[in-house]
């Protein structure tokens, strides 16, 4: 997913990058990264992306489209295929993962209690419906300095990158 985001921000302008859930700081940094930096930063066992929407919005987005709630998404933009592809990979993975372990879903995937309950109750059709609404569901979960250090520090191994990703993605306590 990081490679897809990198591909997109490299070939589009900064404003388009914002459409796929990236901040300006992340976009500027990603644009200066080379493929080997991206590959190194992505090589860790902790997920680098998380849900961009809050619990309530996720619950709302799960509802089928009716005449009353058609105003979802950004419409057709240059980012639509990238958003759709990212959403599909991300949402299907999270949906499958919550069925395994609640602790894994919360601690590793960063899902709240309500998100876990929403995803547990969802069917495959609900997830496909969620992805088709054109809403950017995914955002970068780690802070940009992770990408910088993990991408440039040649001495790091996968375990160290995992530790850094965990420490650079948790919420302020």
């Amino acid at each position, binding site marked *: 997913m990081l490679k897809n985001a990198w591909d997109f921000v490299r070939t589009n302008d900064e404003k388009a990058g914002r459409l796929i859930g990236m901040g300006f700081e992340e976009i500027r940094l990603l644009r200066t990264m080379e493929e080997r930096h991206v590959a190194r930063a992505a090589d860790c066992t902790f997920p680098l992306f998380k849900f961009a929407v809050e619990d309530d919005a996720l619950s709302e987005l799960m509802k089928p489209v009716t005449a009353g709630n058609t105003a979802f998404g950004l419409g057709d933009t240059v980012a639509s295929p990238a958003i759709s592809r990212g959403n599909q990979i991300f949402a299907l993975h999270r949906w499958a993962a919550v069925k395994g372990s609640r602790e894994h879903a919360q601690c590793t995937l960063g899902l709240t209690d309500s998100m876990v309950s929403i995803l547990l109750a969802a069917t495959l059709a609900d997830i496909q419906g969620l992805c088709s609404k054109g809403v950017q569901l995914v955002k970068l979960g780690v802070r940009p300095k992770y990408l910088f250090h993990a991408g440039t520090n040649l001495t790091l191994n996968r375990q*160290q990158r995992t530790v850094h990703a965990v*420490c650079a993605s948790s919420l302020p306590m």
Partner: protein
Amino acid sequence: MSGGNKNIKNLCDLAVDPELAVRFERLVLLTQRTRLIGELLSLDWEDSLIKRLTRQTFEKKELTLKTPRGSGFDLVSSKSISPADRYDLTFLLNLLYSVHLNPKVDTLASGTEAGGRYRLLDRLIYVYQTYQRTFRVGQDARVHFEKFHAAYLSFNSHDLGMEPCRNCSSLVLNFGSGPRLKCPVCQSHGHAVIPGKMAADLRIPSDDGHGSPAARPTELRLASA
């Protein structure tokens, strides 16, 4: 109820509660201290029964049981945490708090609802097992489960705190009062120090020297240097 009858009743309770049995087994593989096992699982069992079941679990898994001695950890202090421990505990606490815990519901305090208590215990166990997997350690881990539990309690009572590192953005373990310590992540990983002016406009310098002048590799020095 006599000791023998009470033990039989407790074993029956365990047999009819598979969730408790699984939790017991997972916990005793991480800590063998009977007082802590009893406390975390809210058991009023005799120590001898907990010890017997712990021994059986280890025999079943074909592992060597090393019975702990002494009173164990209650709280951790700056003196009981080495720089290496700080690195490991930073990882453990970050993973534990990757989603906010509700302090009113998810607590180990006695007298609280069992659901929240077990939810938190399961999370502590999961986080510790993830630590063992990530660091590829077993019973020989630098930070034992008891120390992690004690660090969690100290963090809850604000004796320990987490603060962001300006260089690598990690939230790192620090002591509530006292001097600011070096970031264990930067130290252990040997991260380059990002100069202040470059941090505002973070970019990776290209190999041919192009890019932000502030970002030239010559200006980056190792954090450990």
